[in-house]
């Protein structure tokens, strides 16, 4: 029983991490039809910058942790906004080229990170509480997972509020549905593009700092692996659907943890099999509209 709870809760925690990455991907794809390969690079940069800041403060203190989260988010937002302005915008509507430049950026960024921080993992410190566990129904759940869940929940709520109750949110929702018509109402949809990139980037940056606490280290490749799972999650959830991404994140991660625990570490494979299954039954994903 306690193992079951443990596997379930760690699954949800991992799903929370996936959601931090996938939410931005899904929003960006939904609005702009851009597959952002550089999202993992945003995440990694957030993690490194968060680490650099925390290490200059007292990295075992809560306040350093809070600042590192903030810095991760800001750096992620900044670099994502720059990417949109410098690389994505000039290639307006040329979707393949847009994918390609993000691929190139991811490629170059990882190499650059290796140049700066080396290719070995750098182990990081955290507030003592984050290294401890909390008992739930007999299961000892590492506290990092609670932080992940809290962060993802906060992100989900603020995204929903933003999308539902602000003018920009309305523009984004309308743009996901029919971009051309948004411009035909006299709205410069590119502002929304920039915003979506920045939001996605900041979620990824925060996700990077938390991912570093989840794995215990930062490395130049931190984002690459997470990105692939985030891709899987967005496809399963339905591209462009935020609730879909949220549900799929948790489902995929829980499935993965269960397979890892009960089926001899086959989690990664099971996830891909699940992806294949979803595609065969429902190519548009769980909550996606028809796209193929």
């Amino acid at each position, binding site marked *: 029983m306690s193992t079951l709870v443990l596997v379930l809760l760690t699954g949800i925690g991992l799903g929370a991490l996936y959601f931090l990455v996938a939410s931005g991907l899904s929003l960006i794809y939904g609005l702009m*039809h851009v597959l952002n390969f550089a999202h993992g690079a945003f995440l990694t940069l957030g993690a490194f910058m968060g680490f650099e800041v925390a290490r200059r403060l007292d990295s075992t203190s809560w306040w350093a942790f809070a600042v590192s989260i903030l810095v991760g988010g800001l750096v992620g937002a900044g670099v994502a906004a720059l990417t949109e302005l410098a690389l994505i915008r000039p290639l307006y509507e040329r979707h393949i080229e847009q994918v390609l430049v993000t*691929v190139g950026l991811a490629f170059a960024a990882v*190499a650059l990170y290796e*140049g700066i921080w080396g290719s070995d993992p750098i182990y990081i410190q955290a507030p003592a509480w984050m290294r401890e566990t909390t008992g739930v129904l007999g299961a000892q759940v590492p506290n990092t997972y609670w932080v992940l869940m809290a962060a993802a929940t906060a992100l989900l709520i603020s995204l929903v509020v933003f999308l539902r109750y602000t003018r920009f949110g309305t523009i984004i929702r309308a743009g996901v549905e029919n971009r051309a018509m948004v411009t035909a109402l006299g709205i410069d949809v590119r502002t929304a593009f920039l915003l979506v990139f920045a939001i996605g980037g900041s979620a990824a940056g925060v996700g990077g700092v938390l991912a570093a606490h989840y794995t215990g280290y930062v490395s130049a490749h931190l984002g690459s692996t997470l990105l692939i799972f985030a*891709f899987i999650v967005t*496809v399963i959830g339905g591209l462009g659907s935020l609730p879909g991404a949220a549900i799929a994140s948790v489902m995929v991660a829980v499935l993965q943890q269960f397979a890892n625990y009960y089926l001899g*570490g086959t989690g990664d*494979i099971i996830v891909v099999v699940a992806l294949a299954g979803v595609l*065969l039954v429902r190519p548009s994903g769980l909550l996606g509209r028809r796209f193929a």
Partner: protein
Amino acid sequence: MTAAVAAARRIPVPLVVGVGLVILMACLPLLNISVPGVLPTPTYQPGTLALLSLAMIFAALALSYNMLLGTAGMLSFGHALYFGAGAYGLGIGLENLGVPLWPGVFVALIGGLVIALVTGAVSMRVSGIPFAMVTLAFAQAGSVLVRRNSSVTGGEEGLSLNTAGVPDWLVGVVNTRNLYWATLAVLLVVYLVSVWVDRSRLGHLARATRENELRVRVLGLEPSRARLLVFVIAALCASLVGVAYMLLQSGTVPRSVSADLTITVLVIVVLGGVGYRWGAIVGGVVYTILDQRLTVLAGSDMIESLPSVLRVPLSEPLFILGALFILVVMFLPGGIAGTVDSWMSRRRAGSAHGDAEMSDDAPAGRIEGAEQVLETAGQEARS
């Protein structure tokens, strides 16, 4: 017009150039040519032959990828899976089944074919960007499988070739020449397959589906079948190249199944020019030599003496390649071949009224072709 000129005209220029190039390449191991700064040793020595073989591996892999992106307009991020299947298939066949080389090659190709059929059929449930993501996921699963099952694949360490079943003339540094010729043969085979696909009904169909899926449907043809077939042929070619790679390197590492490798191939194809067969080959060669040169440069004293703002990026070959790639995509949309091609046709248009349609290697489709596929997918998503 004299008869001689007319006769000469019947043999297309690119064919003459191509045959000449193949003969030249075949003779290189017998010649003593030095190209300082580009090739590490004279052409008859193993150092250069190994580098050129690797370049041909990349060229052939890029050609196979060009069938996907250039001809059928499919952006796949999982092509390395089939390359890896060939390499690992051969290695596992020789090691675990204990078969000799040729049956081993057969096993590897069959393995690549089966994997391509299954993953291709599933991936093609979607198109455009989702297709790219799904192929990436499959390749990732393959990469995980390879890393995990170290008893079969050697895990992170990689798998070295069990040479017991391989004929002696294909083993060891002393036989680099033979391996070089074998690789050249593989490149030639992939090239011919690529030409055949582009010219066959299948290629026309694949191009047509890329441009207008609806029209093909109306014509009563099954576009997804054509695309799957191109996908499988391209994958099979990649497996063949993987086999050659395994022989050449006497081993393979998990990177040969990774998304990194696919992206490398994508970089090569875009650099060379999407849709141009000769572009893929030039891209493969340029990339390999550039990669090697940049690595040498990265360790050089000149770089060491730079301030760290310049030193750190310049000592990372992949950073330079990534940045170069971005620049090509943004400012040189046709890649090397596309730029040369449009420059040539502009010149041809300028120099009176020559018959323009002479290139054997007319672009099988620019990147815009694939663009439309994505657009269509996007529009469908909106409706």
